[in-house]
């Protein structure tokens, strides 16, 4: 393609754990184990990514970054193993590359263990942030006052794990909201080798445990909820340490207000990655699933006419 962009070095000093576009695809944030966040701007003239700023954001490995919907401002969320969640705002008065370009709005340090995942909740639900750490508690924060983004209140604290994590275990936690605007608020949260669907009971306004996603034989590394796109069922993909990418079909039965049940069935699983699978994610329209694993390849899956998912292509970074 004409506007394709060449690979570029991020100049992080250690591995990059997450990379995220902003809403318009004009900025790219990377976070790394070297405690730094880097933000790159897309230069439309040359179609290249130019470093906007790089700064030491946390005291430990940063596991997640995420941009908020621009309707709330130019906000960046980061979560780290140092147990804190920070929200940053770009300060356009500061020069690029000064290390001060992004000013910290708030530090949230409620977790009793390293954070493993955090994300902005889909924007139609308000300016909210969900996070989960190794203490097994999912916390949801909301900024009530749009004029004061420094003020975040803890809305929910859900014990996903009944007992705290056993000490030496390697662990992983993930949370992913259902991106559909037109069904009740739901999210899928994984803790170690279990993944659950929670939904918001519209009567009590509390989250309730909906269903367990079956068949996982190892730590779940990533969960991704596909956009609904008018389908009568939801799709959730998981990446698991046992080497499988799984696609679950979740059918939602609404019996009445606040009374919802789910039937979950496994529709596809792939273990083409040699070794662990680290990440799954859906594209914007929920038609293509991508996964990446220890083999260094990115695989794309697409459903065929018979609605079976198939590996569509394999992207390798080797070569030049």
């Amino acid at each position: 393609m004409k506007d394709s962009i060449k690979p570029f070095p991020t100049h992080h000093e250690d591995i990059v754990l997450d990379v995220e576009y902003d809403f318009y695809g004009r900025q790219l944030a990377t976070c790394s184990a070297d405690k730094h966040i880097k933000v790159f701007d897309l230069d439309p003239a040359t179609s290249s990514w130019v470093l906007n700023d790089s700064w030491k954001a946390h005291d430990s490995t940063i596991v997640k970054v995420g941009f908020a919907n621009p309707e709330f401002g130019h906000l960046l969320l980061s979560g780290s193993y140092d147990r804190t969640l920070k929200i940053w705002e770009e300060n356009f008065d500061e020069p690029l590359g000064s290390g001060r370009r992004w000013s910290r709005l708030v530090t949230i340090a409620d977790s009793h263990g390293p954070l493993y995942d955090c994300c902005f909740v889909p924007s139609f639900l308000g300016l909210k942030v969900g996070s989960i750490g190794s203490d097994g508690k999912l916390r949801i924060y909301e900024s009530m006052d749009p004029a004061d983004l420094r003020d975040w209140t803890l809305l929910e604290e859900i014990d996903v794990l009944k007992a705290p994590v056993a000490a030496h275990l390697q662990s992983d936690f993930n949370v992913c909201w259902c991106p559909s605007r037109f069904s009740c608020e739901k999210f899928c949260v994984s803790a170690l080798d279990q993944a659950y669907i929670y939904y918001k009971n519209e009567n009590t306004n509390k989250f309730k445990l909906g269903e367990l996603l079956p068949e996982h034989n190892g730590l779940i590394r990533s969960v991704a909820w596909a956009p609904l796109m008018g389908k009568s069922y939801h799709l959730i993909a998981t990446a698991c340490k046992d080497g499988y990418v799984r696609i679950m079909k979740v059918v939602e039965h609404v019996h009445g207000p606040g009374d919802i049940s789910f039937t979950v069935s496994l529709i596809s699983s792939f273990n083409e990655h040699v070794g662990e699978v680290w990440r799954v994610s859906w594209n914007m329209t929920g038609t293509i699933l991508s996964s990446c694993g220890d083999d260094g390849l990115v695989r794309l899956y697409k459903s065929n006419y018979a609605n079976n998912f198939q590996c569509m292509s394999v992207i390798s970074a080797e070569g030049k």
Partner: protein
Amino acid sequence: MFDSTTGCVRFQSSNEILALAKSNATPNLFVIGGPKSLQLARISESDITLEYDLVMQTGHGRNTKFGLISDLKFGHQTYGRNIAASTLSGSIHLYNLDRGNRVRATLSDHQRAVNSIDFCTVAPYRLVSGSQDGKMKIWDLRMRNTRAATTINGNADAVRCVQFNPRLENVLCSIFDAGVIQKWDLRKPNMVERRLNAHSGPGLALDWHPELDYIVTGGRDKQLQVWNMGSDVEYSREPDHVIYTSAPIFKVCWCRGRGNGSVMNTDIAACFLNDDPCVQIWNLNRRHIPEHIIECHSNQVTGLVWKTPRHLVSCSKDKMLVQNDVLREPRMIDNMPSRAMTWDPKGKLGVLFIKQAKDDYDLHNEPVKVSSLFNSTSNSAAGSINGVITSAVGPVATGAVTSPPNDTLPQSMQSAVSLASYLNSSSEKKIGRNPLSSRTKSGAVSRAKRLIMPKTSPFAVPVDIPLLANEREVFEFLSSSYLIEVSDGLDITQVCEYNATLAASAGKFRDCQTWKTIRFGIMWQYDQNAGLPQDFVHNESHKDTDNHSVTTRSQSDKYGTSLGSFTEESVSSTKELSASPKRMGILSQKIHAEKQEPADEQRDSDAARKEDGQVAVSLPISDRNEVAIADDEEDAVVAFDGEGQAKPMEIRRPSRTLSQLSRNRYSFTGVSVDLDNERSLSAGSSISLSGSPGLSRMFKLSAIKADDVGDGLKKRMISRRESSAALQRESSLSARSQLTAILKDPQHPDEGHPNFLGARILISENGESSLKVPWNPTDLIKRASLYSAKQGDLVLCATFALLFRNLYPESMTSTQAQEWIFNYHEVLLRRCLFGSAAAVLRRASESYDVFKTIGQTRTSVRLFCNNCHNLILNEDSKNKVRDEDPRTDFGFWYCDRCGKRQGKCAYCEEPLKGICVALLECGHKGHFGCFKSWFLEEKQSDCPACGTPAVRQ
């Protein structure tokens, strides 16, 4: 408690454990100290047993005097059975294990708490203690008295940790509350040998490397610093290595016996002062990710000792004494993803992932700094790869003066690893190899210089997935051009036709066919309705076409005309698409020939316009064809580009007339011909294939219609069913073969949509008066929109939703429609197509409250007074005005608070309303008339408000 899977041994003591020491003489013997206890423990591979209680004995007289233990140490060599215990009360108790639990001596010279004690390895009778009072005292255990042999006054600061150099009898290092490290030689107790401002907060821990002259220190500032304390090195003001950890460091400890030849290979265990009760094991090779994090305690870890190279013993305030097998602990890096990846947010098919190798970092931060020693040693080896390796171990070599034999082993071990990674990075290899450049560097050693780039920095790799639907231009063109509402002067079929042409011109021939098929379906339905008795028509049309004004008015003759004109249009468009420009002339003739039927006004004007269009378009096409022969591909791209750029921001106004539309259409068809030339033959051929069935179907339909008008319902039904069968066959052959393939697939997931036969039965059960045919628009739209949604074609399914949801409520559920529109709107926003997004939103808000809310809430603009800089609320006057007349529209052109008007004309200072003129230079606005008189009549060239030059000569 022994856990065989992890090799972890745990022991629960009855007291908090505050200090821990390992016997240097007896293996596996440890002493642990609590608030009022001092116990000997034996730690084997799989078991911990309490051996002996030194203090906690009933009736022990000294219990009361015994303070909180702060540090414990075993003596060396001849003093190997001696234990020293320092307390917070300022005394040091000495025990000799050979003499039972009796305190051999109590040294209480310190005024305040003793924080740290250490025996000298080389001169085992020497004991040093560092106290809160800022003094370090050296005790000679051979002396009987309890006075210190030497007292060193550091400074006023409390000594946090003090330790002898394990290989020298006179050298000790201490770290202070101010973060200062001091190195002392006992022979010169009045003068500090070296003083380093190391930590920015209190320094808390210090440990000498067991074999090299390095110390590692830790402090409240969360840093682990490694300093070269050799006496022959040039003194540096910066630490050799820094590791930034996540918490204030309480204790730090080099691994003993493993990888000791080099500081780079020696693990460092650290525990923290905060509420994070974990032990982290770091390696200088990877300074951002700890090798292991061991979480075995529930309260602050107070002591760390390496029992063996692989066993780490730790004690904690949670009363636990734990031995961990470090080599069996999970590696931290294994829990981290090897890849990161994200989808392009603009709905385009593109991923970006990070190319990196987890283990590539292991050597990347080897300092480029090369010491003087390196220069002397490696000059001989320079030029070869050996030189590189030496440079990598440079700092080791400097420290290894005292023990050169140790240096050889790690070198050879490293070579295998470092060779590969160094070979990959030719540039750095040069730096390492070139003694000249390295010498210049070693002069000024700054931390920044030493932090070289990683060998393989993580690369971000954007990937575009080459699918046809992927193109940005197509999306922008279609999203801006598709009609999403039935505007005045058009009916739905014309909209379909127009959209079909657009799709074709964008190269989406399948979509084009879909639009056309839907159009035929709709036309067929109108046709049906037209033939029915009047009251039935009204029922039907009201049901199906809720607010479709066009259909209800003057039906029968309207359909006649529109049908005719559409036949024609479809002929022209399909032919245009497939035919080569040469045939254009024939075509237009053909069209003229077909136009012989009686024509009303609309028809005439239509035809006239068409002629215009033909004339206008045939020339450029033939022109372009010539060009296309020369440079087919480039021309196509350019032409299309122009289209894509020109169109995106254009919003279709509902008032647009057909003539405009058709002009547009022709300009696009030109492009489509070009695309045809350039692209897949199959696409073009499919059109020519499907064109003819479409036509025949058309004629058939009109024929049926003509018959029907006079005939009864029954007869018509029969004929229709016949024709339906025929059509079904036809359609399965032509462009819809893909769709029918899906429909024939029994496993097709859209359970809610039975196949044709089922649909027919279903509808008739519902009590509909007529049977349902496969091409009834509801069904067609349902299938088409579901298919496009499944393909992720948001433009199409959202356009369907916007256009057809009200007309054919059965074709999609309200949720589906909203979902599509919502997603479409978001993608439009993401792609910055705000014009189209606003149009979509406005259209959608007619039907759905959700979108109305979005439109109202998300587009609010806050106004601030440009005089007093407050948010303009104007609540007072709003309430006043509303009280008088609640319907008054309320403005914010003035500020209640300061009473000033906002946005005044720069010239006359009257409020501006509606369209105004703004000066680009300064942003001041004014009435057109005012600026006219200012700039033209008064011949001014500057802004009337601020004097900025506004008119360029």
